């Protein structure tokens, strides 16, 4: 159970067809474009509250989500929009969500990326991090109890590793040897707190102590993230237990819209700008002769159309503010999500 470092996967797409690699780029472009648009809407006063984005971290959600099958289940963090896109949430519903509209995923009950579409096998985060590690662990526990070949996956940040739920989830998953993948997005800062004030030892090293496989991956390489997650999922399904993947990346924007990030040295930002995950996938595909400009144009057109539609969507009715606190009728479990990776082709229709 030694901690290992995944091989650098630059240009080495072991299990990805060209179409897959384009899909990954598209998901990341869409994430970046939607978040840029949302920030602009925020500045126009159309997004209430604050706004959080994942600029520079697009590969951390795109790669792992791409490795998940329809029947797998995901608990998604706030800088991981690409995971929602890959599972099948539409751009217009996401923009409506940010603007607190009735047609947003939470129908105005929660903001930002605090959502998950239950019909697509996803649970939205809560602000107490990393609570969802335990929820994902519980999903995996149910899969194991029922003898199902399924996996649960969740993301959390470097700050999360300081909280007790990190320990409880890692320990529980290790004790029960559960089919769960933990993706630690190490983006260098928890709000303004740098890593050296968060932990004395890189948390991926704790994996071995809990009986987990631990791997460190270039979090700005979507294909490397995909490969590491695909391998982790295979281990999980083979009964070889959970994996902690540390995705090393950088939060390139402030914690939220209000945060000018003055506490981050400029050189650090410049260094990471050269490692931009979207640019990296873009260059790769250009070298392979892909018409990347066309992909970009299609993404922009989609965002433009979705923005118009979301802006026209109704706000929720005040009369609904106290509805749905309790569920009624039979509890409906999470449904299956989309799984666009070609490796899942021929597995039958996605039930959602």
């Amino acid at each position, binding site marked *: 159970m030694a901690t290992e470092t995944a091989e650098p996967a630059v240009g080495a797409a072991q299990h990805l067809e060209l179409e897959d690699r384009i899909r990954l780029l598209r998901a990341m472009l869409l994430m970046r474009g939607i978040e840029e648009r949302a920030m602009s809407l925020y500045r126009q006063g159309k997004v209430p509250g604050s706004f959080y984005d994942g600029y520079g971290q697009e590969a951390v959600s795109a790669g792992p989500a791409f490795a998940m099958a329809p029947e797998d289940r995901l608990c998604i963090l706030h800088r991981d929009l690409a995971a929602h896109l890959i599972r099948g949430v539409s751009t217009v519903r996401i923009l409506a969500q940010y603007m607190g509209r009735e047609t947003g995923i939470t129908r105005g009950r929660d903001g930002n990326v605090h959502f998950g579409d239950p019909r697509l096998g996803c649970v939205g985060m809560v602000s107490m991090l990393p609570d969802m590690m335990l929820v994902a662990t519980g999903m995996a526990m149910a899969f194991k109890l029922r003898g199902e070949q399924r996996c649960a996956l969740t993301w959390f940040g470097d700050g999360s590793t300081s909280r007790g739920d990190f320990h409880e989830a890692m320990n529980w998953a290790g004790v029960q040897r559960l089919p769960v993948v933990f993706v630690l997005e190490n983006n260098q800062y928890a709000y303004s707190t740098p890593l050296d004030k968060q932990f004395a030892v890189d948390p991926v090293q704790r994996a071995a102590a809990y009986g987990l496989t631990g791997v460190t991956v270039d979090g700005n390489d979507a294909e490397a993230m995909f490969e590491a997650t695909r391998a982790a999922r295979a281990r999980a399904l083979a009964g070889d237990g959970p994996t902690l993947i540390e995705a090393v990346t950088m939060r390139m924007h402030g914690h939220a819209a209000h945060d000018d990030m003055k506490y981050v040295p400029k050189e650090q930002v410049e260094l990471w700008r050269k490692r931009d995950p979207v640019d990296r996938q873009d260059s790769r595909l250009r070298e392979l002769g892909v018409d990347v400009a066309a992909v970009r144009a299609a993404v922009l057109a989609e965002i433009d159309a979705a923005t118009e539609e979301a802006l026209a969507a109704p706000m929720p009715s005040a009369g609904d503010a106290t509805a749905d606190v309790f569920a009624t009728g039979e*509890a*409906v479990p999470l449904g299956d999500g989309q799984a666009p990776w070609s490796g899942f082709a021929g597995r039958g229709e996605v039930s959602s």
Partner: protein
Amino acid sequence: MPTMTYLQAISSALRDELRADERVFVMGEDIGVFGGAFKVTDGLFEEFGPGRVMDTPLAESAIIGTAVGAAVVGMRPVCEMQFSDFISCGFDQLVNVAGKMNYRQGLAVPITVRLPSGGGFSGGPFHSQNPEAWFMHSPGIKVVAPSTAEDAKGLLHTAIHDPNPVCFMEHKHLYRRIKGDVPSGIYETPMTARVARAGSDLVVIAYGAMVHVALEATEDVDGASIEVLDLRSLVPLDSDAILDSVARCSKVVIMDEANATCAAGAQVAALIAEHGFEDLDGPVVRVATPDVPIPFSPPLEQAVLPSVERVREACRELLAY
């Protein structure tokens, strides 16, 4: 109808559910091989095995959190907190993750959390609490608190069948003291109040172990006709039954074994003040535990927990008002 203790009734509900519904499993600390700190799950491990009667690590947040995860993929977890006091370690998962899920995402979280609660036997500050009000104040969580063996079984079935997180407050002091006839098989007790004894001069409103204190205290208070209303459910709170009793009796004593401030009884008092004021013939009187940690030594503990004498005296004074 078989006669069971309150504890046996709870065990019986768990066994019946495990037999009837493969989605149901029970989880907690020391509940499997050992059968639980109070032996509520005794024998279940042998019948259903380690997957469905699961010994967990000592991790209350994880017990609740993993139950949420299992529930949203189709299971029906029943969690045991070894003592209700320990739910403070799982508070965040219950309040923020489970309680808000349906409102935020339209995703039901059918989990039951069994909370062995209450004092009266020198459990001290960490084994005697009645934390139900914490969850009454948290949207999206139901809270039930049976006082009889029949209701303990029936309400546990109701809780497990409910599509929401339900806190099942089972009073430790009733486990082996209280016995009663219990119907066979699976039945649901509604989350509504029950008139434990009908009366017309005064009503004592209580739940859990305090129902028995109320019944004993009011058996004969100078010949007055005293009603005892057993709330059974705190969320939802049966406003109709409460206001109906107030309308018929006009005088009210409200009991809590919990610390007085913001207790369930405080909510009942507020309800009566808002909606039953015209029916009152005297001030609403509360008998509750003062706002102190529950002390260990018997004379100290008995000094703070509501006693038969305190309730009787409160009734006597109010009757004379």
